[in-house]
């Protein structure tokens, strides 16, 4: 894969580059958001995935995020994995406002868990969606939708993993249960929350996120 990384810590950029090169990828690294935006202009060849930090020079706030949103509008098919010192629901909303295919948003520290990182990288590059569990937990804490309380605790866990962008197989793996059990939970959740039975994962993520983030109408508040 051709991977572009934007990361202002030279030490970490080096480490990631070496890791990914060893995995057989072609890696280009940049240390500022402006450089990446310049390198991936309208006429530039689109890489297989862009990995970017949020907090980067010059203001050390959300340059990376803004660059990601900008590049996604320029290259709608560009998969982007956003790494952040902290994850935050409103950043997520900004990032996932459009198409959620090929998008990832995870805590930067999780990069240290190399297997997880490579897994997330592969899923995003393959058009999947990866949302950090902390973001999902935040969304769940803020949701005002009624209906959540009708879910069993296990169904809530499954809903969270669905919102993280995991496939049924991955959920089964994570919860150490069989695939049929997960499928049963998913069907039950979608029925209870009145969501369409989506065939592909990214449409399911989108449906779940939209449902969770939807502002309540009158009388809907629990």
């Amino acid at each position, binding site marked *: 894969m051709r991977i572009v990384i934007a990361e202002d810590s030279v030490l970490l950029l080096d480490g990631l580059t070496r890791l990914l090169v060893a995995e057989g990828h072609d890696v280009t690294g940049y240390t500022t958001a402006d450089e990446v935006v310049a390198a991936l202009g309208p006429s530039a060849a689109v890489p297989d995935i862009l990995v970017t930090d949020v907090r980067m020079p010059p203001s050390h706030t959300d340059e990376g995020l803004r660059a990601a949103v900008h590049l996604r509008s320029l290259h709608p098919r560009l998969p982007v994995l956003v790494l952040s010192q902290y994850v*935050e629901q409103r950043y997520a909303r900004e990032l996932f406002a459009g198409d959620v295919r090929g998008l990832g948003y995870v805590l930067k520290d999780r990069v240290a868990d190399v297997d997880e990182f490579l897994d997330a990288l592969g899923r995003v590059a393959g058009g999947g969606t990866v949302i950090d569990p902390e973001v999902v937990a935040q969304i769940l*804490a*803020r949701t005002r939708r009624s209906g959540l309380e009708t879910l069993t605790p296990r169904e809530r866990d499954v809903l969270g993993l669905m919102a993280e962008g995991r496939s049924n197989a991955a959920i089964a793996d994570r919860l150490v249960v069989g695939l049929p059990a997960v499928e049963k939970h998913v069907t039950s959740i979608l029925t209870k929350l009145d969501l369409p039975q989506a065939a592909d994962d990214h449409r399911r993520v989108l449906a779940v996120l939209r449902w969770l983030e939807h502002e309540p109408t009158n009388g809907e508040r629990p």
Partner: protein
Amino acid sequence: MTSPTPPGSVSDDLRVVAPAFVDLRALAAAPVSVATWRGISQLVIGSVVLLLAFLVLTVGVATSLSLVIVVVGIPMLVATLWLCRPFAELERARLHAQLAVEIPAPRYPQRVGVWASWGGVLADSRTWAHAAYILVAGVVLTVQGVLVSVAGGFAIGGLVYPVVALASGMSHPPIPLVLMVPGAVLLLWVTALVTQAGSLALVRSARALVGASARAEAVEAARQAQLRAAQAEGRAVQLTETRTAAVGAADEERRRIERDLHDGAQQRLVALGVELGSARRKASSDPEAAAALEHAHREVKETLAELRDLVRGIHPAVLTDRGLDAALSALAARSPVPVRVDVPDPPALGRASTSAQAAAYFVAAEALTNAAKHASASAVTVTATVAGQNLRLVIADDGRGGAVAAPGSGLDGLRSRVAALDGTFDLDSPAGAGTRLTVEVPCAS
């Protein structure tokens, strides 16, 4: 010499210089009482002093007035009047020594410059009062002197005469002895009472005319009180300002430490984790090396997690970058107890100062920790609003209650933090009925 009366206590004068008028025993012992004999000695010395003063004053004033027309009279008048001040001091000292009364000295207006100080002397009512005292005290002492010598003279004569008459064999005294002796004894008491009354009259005049004026003292006391109040007010303003600055500086320092840790140790650990992780993947052919690397990698990941928690406890970057609303979401997401965050108007929270937001954040963090650790709560709601000029945070759980902000506890530290911002901290935690913590912090703090 210690004075039996505290300065300025007018009511005590009667007991000290004229006890015969308030106490029957003192009345009975009046001719031999200390007050009477002090009064006699005062009368003798005072008469001389006042006579001299009277002469100086009358000669000085009369001469000055007659010379006003040739200008020289004015400085003479000033000098004469000015002399009344040391005289007043002398008189206060004399009364203190002779009658054991303490009369507070007045404050004279201080003027800078020759003309101004002359004018000050002429315009000072106290100095004129001293002059008036010379006249008043002169009259008092004169009347007292006449009465004491007449009554005292007849008393002594009435007691001595019968002895002399009996000794010399005189058979027909001009007044019958049965009348003369009781009359003389009565006059003895009259002399004592007149002496004490005169002392009292003199002390009262001195208090009014050579002591500090009651009105001037009240004005001065009020001025001093006002000055102290203004100083206290200034001090309070200064303390509030420095306290706010100190809180702000502490928050700023926390942010700096957070930034340093993030840019330094955290980044290095993440990079180390990546290195170890990739080394572990490569070393899969050597099981021993792989196990060692696996262990090291796990250690790094755990250290990283600990460091992350530590950094968040110092000052979460999300609070600096995205404000209280986002920071509360992050707290809720990490809480083991399900938390509902309710922020009806997120942009409004941005009106609160960073110190106020930081205080609210740390209160919420502590309350959520307590709800999970001690209260065994199953649900918590966090509500943040801006009410008037205050940032208002309410954290309510359904746990076992009974929480107290014991000294040295986390809640106690937060109460101090809130108090330092002039905020209020209300912990309502009845046993068995959940805990409700309400904190209000001024947005501007």
